[in-house]
């Protein structure tokens, strides 16, 4: 396995520069959050409401519903999902020492998609009491289980005598992804046209279904997974030098791989479960940051979380404002914005554009 990531020993000033970037990105995230609460299809604005509260006036029911039941849970979910996708992307790219790796490549996305499709297509035939039990959460729960199931299977396949082969994992991930895709295809075939339309929209991703229930069900797992991923900085830096070298400089490589895989499965599984398929955040954000502040994972992971959250929130603002009162699936927005950026990054890497 060749390491494609350029290995670069970060000079001290570069590291402090990257640390300063934490603060800049945190500021940008805060501004994005304010923007997200300020605008929407209704003319309810955060500033007007704060003014009302300051003057001791009561908020109208419309204002309360829009702020507390629609925009705030949506913002919270956007922050969680954006951070989860970007951190997972950064961790995967570090783990595979391949800048093209993303959670989709190890089959987490396909597994989660299979779970969601199962719930949408077969949900109707479950006994009523079972539907009542999970209610509207059936699709997210199934997606999450699908993501976890495929990750665990993958891990089993690629681990022998306690050693995980990243190369095997990559290949097995592609095979499992294809298998999940094929099984999804069978279900698509037996789906009726209404379910098909649900599947299409699920696949495009959206934060429109945000609710406090979803934030509370996915939030703890996402935060835990991000927290675990943020501790991998030194280990991933070591891994960039090769497994043997990493082991020689005192890194428990196997333990680090375990943590990275669990963190990615947890964060991506839960994020995909609540928001559907949202592409490009996981692959574009770490790239942009490596260009801006170098490949040091000690700063890259946290910066990815901040920038991922910021970009997803801004994409969501675009998704719900641009054709209001209707809204675009957010996956379309991230792909339309993300794909050209990604292409530009690729061209730049090969020295084909000067910018």
């Amino acid at each position: 396995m060749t390491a494609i990531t350029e290995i670069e020993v970060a000079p001290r000033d570069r590291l402090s520069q990257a640390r300063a970037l934490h603060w800049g990105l945190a500021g940008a995230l805060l501004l994005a959050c304010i923007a997200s609460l300020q605008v929407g299809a209704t003319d309810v604005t955060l500033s007007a409401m704060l003014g009302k509260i300051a003057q001791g006036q009561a908020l109208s029911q419309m204002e309360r519903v829009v702020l507390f039941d629609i925009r705030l849970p949506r913002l919270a979910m956007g922050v969680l999902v954006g951070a989860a996708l970007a951190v997972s992307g950064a961790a995967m790219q570090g783990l595979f020492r391949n800048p093209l790796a993303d959670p989709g490549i190890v089959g987490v996305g396909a597994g989660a998609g299979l779970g969601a499709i199962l719930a949408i297509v077969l949900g109707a035939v479950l006994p009523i009491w079972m539907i009542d039990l999970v209610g509207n959460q059936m699709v997210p729960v199934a997606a999450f289980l699908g993501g976890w199931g495929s990750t665990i299977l993958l891990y089993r396949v690629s681990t022998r005598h306690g050693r995980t082969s990243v190369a095997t994992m990559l290949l097995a991930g592609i095979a499992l992804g294809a298998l999940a895709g094929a099984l999804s295809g069978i279900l698509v075939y037996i789906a009726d046209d209404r379910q098909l339309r649900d599947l299409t929209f699920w696949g495009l991703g959206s934060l429109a279904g945000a609710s406090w229930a979803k934030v509370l069900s996915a939030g703890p797992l996402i935060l835990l997974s991000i927290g675990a991923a943020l501790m991998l900085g030194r280990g991933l830096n070591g891994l960039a030098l090769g497994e043997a070298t990493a082991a020689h400089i005192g890194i428990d490589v196997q333990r680090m791989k375990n943590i990275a895989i669990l963190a990615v499965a947890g964060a991506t599984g839960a994020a995909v479960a609540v928001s559907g398929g949202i592409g490009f955040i996981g692959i574009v954000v770490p790239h942009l940051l490596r260009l801006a502040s170098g490949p040091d994972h000690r700063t890259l992971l946290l910066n990815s979380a901040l920038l991922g959250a910021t970009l997803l929130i801004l994409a969501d603002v675009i998704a719900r404002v641009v054709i209001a009162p209707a809204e675009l699936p957010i996956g379309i927005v991230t792909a339309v914005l993300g794909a050209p950026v990604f292409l530009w990054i690729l061209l730049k890497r090969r020295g084909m554009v000067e910018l």
Partner: protein
Amino acid sequence: MTSCNSSKGAYAALLTAMFGAFIAMTVSAQEPTEGSNLRADVLSIGGSVTEIVAALGQEHRLKARDTTSSYPPEVTKLPDVGYMRALSPEGVLSVGPSLILSEEGAGPPEALEVIRAADVSFVEVPDALTPDGILRKIEIVGDALGVPDRADGLAAEVETALASALRDAERPEADKRRVLFVLSTQGGKITASGTGTAADALIRMASGVNAVTEYEGYKQITDEAVGLAAPDVILMMDRGGDHGVADEDLFDMPAIRLTPAAQTRSVLRMDGLLMLGFGPRTAEAVRALNDALYAEGT
């Protein structure tokens, strides 16, 4: 060139006529109708529900609609809250409805939950594939709009129209033509309607025989099965302009080339909402399809 010159006058006349019709439409839309003291605050979701609202003379109360609501044409001027299966809660609330009338199956469910929490009345109108179902839709919409008497009137009208259309459409079993409803021919693969769909119901009501009864719903069908289904007529949605597949291309598809329909080059195209909406215009759809099926060739 000469034809171009001579048709200039015709174009001008056509433009004037269209302009006149447009003015007439806007004027008539502004004319006060019964109940116009009520403010426009109804959001209608689903093509057939919107048609019923208009047929009840309550169009002036519509404030917004969804993408599937395209008839009567004037409603397309209203704000569009998006596709009925992918509604945005804030988008829906932003049009300020105090009543939402929705065809069964609007979503996503989480969006509807939030909308209900905002204290907006939400009335779900069940799907229908039978004359009785259409009457029930009309009653539910009439009750929700507070015009039950008008709904009774409309229901009676629709009932009579449907009964007479069905009676006129009746044919002896042996004469019935086999109809293949083709939803799409994307990539040379034919997606056709089996049983349990609006297309199947309409074909039966118009005294046709659905050529495909082996499966339920709309599915891709193999070329050989199309041959076995042996349709006398292909029925498709009229997408207007160049969006639909041309007749030559359709009859040139290997699956269709060998069917009786290809031999007689029988293809019918109807407006999708008229055909599959199951609203107040279904009697019209039954007659149109029946006429088209049996007027030619027999």
